[in-house]
């Protein structure tokens, strides 16, 4: 950010009165309303995500990859309505991932790093819903909607769904690394450095799931202790932490531009000095 420092927006006084009155005031006047809307969308999305995957469809924790064809067909039969209702909800709310990714990209735009980081993240994560969620939702919905098809095909859909969901983590791997690099290079201290390193931990777990392509049983299978349970704990912690940190970022947001006062231009960072050096 090389724009000259400008005055931060002075916060308006929130009125006292009935809760409804205060909510209405915030909707109309709070300068952070768009940010809060994006943040609450993240919270709502992850609640629904949990509800759909862990409760309604029972696709998480994943069922066994080692089942024979008959057992897989039985699984589809048992979860018929759960799959249809759950993934019906998911198809409706997939777009809620956009404000979530936008807020994360916004965090990077508040950093002193190049906008290329935020752009890369946005492009990567606009793809992420496909391998991360949609392929599975579509494949399992197809399986649930066509129970009369050849059991071998149903079994193929089952493998396709879970392998695409668990095994295709490259987008998230690079996305986490982009965010990590932005945080570590940032001089505005938008997000703490330890969270930058936590991104690396999360990125590494995306690699740990890859043996799920090879194993049908044991700790490295798609429902295994290492490939799923430990990774899920790390991912859950990571997600909880970034939602909390984004909330803190919005609370601290002052809408000012330019470097922080204590990061006033130095010989190395002052654009005019750098330009002179370049000449």
């Amino acid at each position, binding site marked *: 950010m090389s724009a000259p420092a400008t005055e931060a927006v002075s916060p308006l006084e929130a009125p006292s009165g009935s809760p409804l009155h205060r909510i209405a005031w915030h909707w109309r006047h709070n300068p952070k309303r768009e940010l809060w809307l994006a943040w609450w969308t993240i919270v709502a999305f992850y609640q629904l995500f949990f509800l759909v995957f862990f409760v309604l469809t029972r696709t998480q924790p994943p069922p066994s990859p080692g089942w024979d064809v008959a057992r897989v067909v039985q699984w589809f039969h048992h979860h018929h309505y759960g799959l249809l209702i759950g993934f019906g909800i998911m198809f409706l709310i997939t777009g809620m991932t956009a404000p979530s990714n936008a807020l994360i990209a916004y965090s990077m735009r508040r950093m002193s790093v190049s906008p290329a980081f935020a752009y890369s993240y946005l492009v990567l994560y606009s793809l992420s819903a496909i391998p991360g969620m949609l392929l599975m939702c579509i494949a399992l919905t197809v399986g649930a909607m066509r129970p009369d098809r050849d059991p071998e095909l149903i079994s193929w859909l089952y493998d396709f769904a879970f392998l695409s969901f668990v095994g295709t983590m490259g987008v998230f791997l690079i996305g986490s690394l982009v965010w990590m690099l932005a945080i570590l290079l940032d001089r505005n201290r938008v997000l703490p450095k*330890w969270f930058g390193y936590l991104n690396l931990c999360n990125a590494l777990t995306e690699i740990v799931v890859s043996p799920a392509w090879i194993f049908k049983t044991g700790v490295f299978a798609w429902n295994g*202790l290492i490939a799923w349970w*430990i990774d899920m704990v790390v991912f859950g912690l990571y997600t909880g932490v970034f939602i909390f940190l984004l909330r803190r970022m919005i609370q601290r947001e002052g809408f000012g531009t330019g470097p922080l006062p204590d990061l006033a231009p130095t010989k190395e960072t002052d654009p005019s000095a750098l330009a002179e050096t370049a000449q």
Partner: protein
Amino acid sequence: MTDLAGAGPRPHRVDGKPDAKDGNKPAEFVPGQPDMWAFVLFEALVFTSYFVVYMIFRTRSPELYLQSQAHLSLRIGVFETLVLLVSSWSMARCVQAARQGAYRSALTNALLTMFLGVVFLVAKVFEWTRLIRMGFGFSSNEFFSHYFFLTGIHFLHLLIGFVAVGVIVYQLRSPARRSQELVETGATYWHTVDFLWIVIFALLYVVR
């Protein structure tokens, strides 16, 4: 974006402490960024969970694990461990030299650490090739799955370690940078990877 975080000369620190480079730095809680220590703690927890899983599955079929373990070459394992221990020693010398302002010596030690890291990686690839030629791959049996997974994920951590040492070398090369904090942060990462190897070595090669 012109520099690594915190690397460039800063006018003053927010917490009012004098900058790391002025030599009168008060004793900090930990060397390097405390943030890196959060990473160390978290990674240690994740690896501990891998080790616990390994131990649980080992107690389920001790015969298979013992027989498979016999195919590992303890000699190569000891060599790799020694190489990493010496690399940690050279890294410690690098930090010490940088603290005393002997940047040329610090740089030499950082490059020596990198060289030893490469020796470890080559030894590791050699060891993997040897086992695969003997017919033991990632999916041969439970022991070898754990073996290739643990050594593989450690290998990956070591590759990231080259980025950490790269940052140290970058810091030491120019008088305009030389952030002691970043040197110590990179060193902390390297020592962690070394420490993790010691545990992996003990569990996979030594414990019978």
